[in-house]
């Protein structure tokens, strides 16, 4: 930890914006992928008719009480293990009291003094620099309902379907020093929660909501007053909102105005942030332990059971790719962007024993085509097995790289296509028959005495002309390397 602190305390000159150091911390609300709500048995599915998934407990009807969902706790443990956090053996649910129409009980059940997940960090690459953002905590709480302001002239409609959906609020230290680092952190956290499957990560539907606490200061000065940008529901908006907020704060300070702590909303249309009508009484939530819920006790055995059942984490898998397949850190990270890509890579690499080539094809040809089609690896028309066969054919010299691209075209458009069949059909095999090649070479030499003399006179370029002639003579099937060797050997004679 200390080393991290030290790293953070010294401002990195190159990151200063108009002489100011940017300080960013995150609070992320991740909806947990449970079947039922955190304290009731109502379903959590998105997009149902208003209030059809809000049961008596979710509506806080008189006499109802909360009963904790084991699945939500399990997911909290998984996140804690994924981020190297401490899993509290005993944590407490508290009531956060405030009045709001989308908060049926008039209080939110959350965790205050003792959260279930404590400490840990999120590590990722920013360019080729390794970053580590420390977590303060992640605590379990219930989501609120939704207020629909559009309709009902002069009134607001309340839909409580979302009320009681389990959330993990993941809170970081103010460790980030640039918008790029902040967005990279958010993307990494998003990758992790979806990778381990505790959250579907759908930002449009609000499954993964980020609040960014942004402040600026002159290097070495104490932390500036922060403003919290709420509900950033896409990485693009996140980038725009934080950039705008940084500029805005610096201008305020430059104009001699002090920053007031505030909660702000980002308007994608104007690209600006504006302060919310300050939530009243925000200062006094009257937290106290919820008497309806005894302490949440998590036995070490449970943590170990969860650990044993957990899938290999991206960080760990990337390290293994470097060790087992000799990939670079950069490539290994790129190939562990998602579980699908990683397993596609591993299947192909194992099948042909050419991890580097396979990696290059995935990061190059395949991702280029997928991006163009706005699709992803799960929808890739070329299977890992086919890619392995294709790479195998390049490796054993059957086809050249260029020919392989033509094969890929065929495979991409025709799901029935087979690698070798395509090579045959398109006649892409390289000519490896020395006898036949020798005939062509002799013919070309005989037909181009001029080039031969020039070459012998020391003009290396002349050789290229001859090679071109020979390749042409072989309809491009000759193996260029073989041609070169043969020519040199004959001309030397």
């Amino acid at each position, binding site marked *: 930890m200390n080393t991290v602190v030290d790293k953070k305390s010294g401002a990195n000159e190159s990151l200063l914006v108009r002489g100011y150091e940017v300080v960013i911390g995150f609070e992320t609300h991740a909806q947990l992928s449970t079947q039922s709500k955190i304290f009731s048995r109502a379903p959590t599915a998105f997009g149902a008719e208003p*209030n*059809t998934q809000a049961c008596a407990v979710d*509506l806080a009807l008189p006499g109802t009480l909360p009963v904790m969902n084991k*699945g939500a706790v399990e997911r909290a443990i998984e996140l804690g293990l994924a981020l190297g956090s401490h899993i509290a053996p005993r944590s407490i649910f508290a009531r956060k009291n405030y009045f709001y129409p989308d908060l049926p009980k008039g209080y939110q059940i959350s965790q205050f003094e003792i959260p279930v997940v404590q400490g840990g960090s999120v590590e990722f690459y920013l360019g080729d620099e390794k970053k580590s953002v420390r977590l303060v905590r992640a605590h379990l709480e219930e989501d609120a309902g939704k207020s629909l302001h559009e309709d009902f002239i002069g*009134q607001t*409609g309340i839909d409580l379907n979302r009320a009681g959906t389990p959330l993990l609020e993941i809170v970081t230290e103010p460790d980030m020093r640039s918008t790029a680092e902040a967005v990279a952190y958010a993307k990494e956290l998003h990758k992790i929660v979806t990778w381990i499957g505790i959250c579907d990560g759908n930002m449009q539907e609000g499954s993964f909501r980020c609040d960014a606490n942004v402040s600026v200061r002159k290097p070495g000065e104490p932390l500036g007053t922060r403003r919290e940008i709420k509900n950033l529901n896409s990485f693009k908006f996140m980038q725009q909102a934080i950039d705008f907020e940084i500029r805005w704060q610096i201008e305020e300070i430059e104009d001699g105005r002090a920053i007031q702590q505030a909660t702000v909303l980002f308007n994608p249309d104007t690209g600006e942030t504006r302060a*919310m009508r300050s939530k009243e*009484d925000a200062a006094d939530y009257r937290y106290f332990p919820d008497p309806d819920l*005894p302490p949440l006790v998590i036995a070490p055995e449970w943590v170990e059971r969860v650990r044993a059942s957990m899938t290999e984490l991206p960080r760990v898998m990337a390290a293994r790719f470097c060790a087992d397949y000799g990939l670079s850190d950069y490539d290994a990270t790129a190939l562990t962007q998602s579980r699908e890509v990683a397993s596609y890579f591993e299947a192909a690499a194992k099948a042909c024993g050419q991890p580097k080539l396979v990696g290059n094809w995935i990061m190059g040809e395949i991702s280029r085509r997928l991006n163009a089609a706005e699709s992803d690896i799960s929808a890739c028309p070329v299977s890992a097995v086919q890619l392995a066969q294709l790479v195998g054919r390049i490796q054993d010299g059957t086809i050249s790289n260029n020919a392989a691209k033509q094969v890929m075209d065929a495979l991409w458009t025709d799901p029935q296509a087979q690698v070798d069949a395509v090579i045959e059909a398109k006649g892409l095999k390289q000519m490896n028959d020395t006898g036949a090649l020798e005939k062509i070479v002799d013919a070309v030499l005989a037909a181009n005495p001029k080039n031969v003399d020039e070459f012998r006179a020391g003009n290396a370029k002349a050789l290229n002309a001859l090679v071109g002639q020979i390749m042409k003579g072989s309809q491009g099937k000759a193996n260029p390397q073989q041609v070169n060797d043969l020519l040199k050997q004959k001309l030397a004679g």
Partner: protein
Amino acid sequence: MSLTLADIDRLAHLARLGLQPDERSLLCSQLNDFFGIVEKMRAVDTSGVVPLAHPVDVRGDMALRLREDIAGEPNQREANQISAPAVESGLFLVPKVIE
């Protein structure tokens, strides 16, 4: 420690209780009377005592019971909204909320 009318107003607003002028002053004196008998309690030395949040948790080993993650509540919107003051197409209506 004695509560003022300003305290009463702050608390009433926190609790969303609209008070009549005469109610304010009555409550103020009644609460101050009450906190008179509370002073005795504040004087007690409780250093090292663990707060008791759940009365049967005398041994401090009470644990939250967990429910299996199974969705099992049918839609009962109609029954649940029978006593709702204002509903339109399934939504509870409230005065406009400004953010």
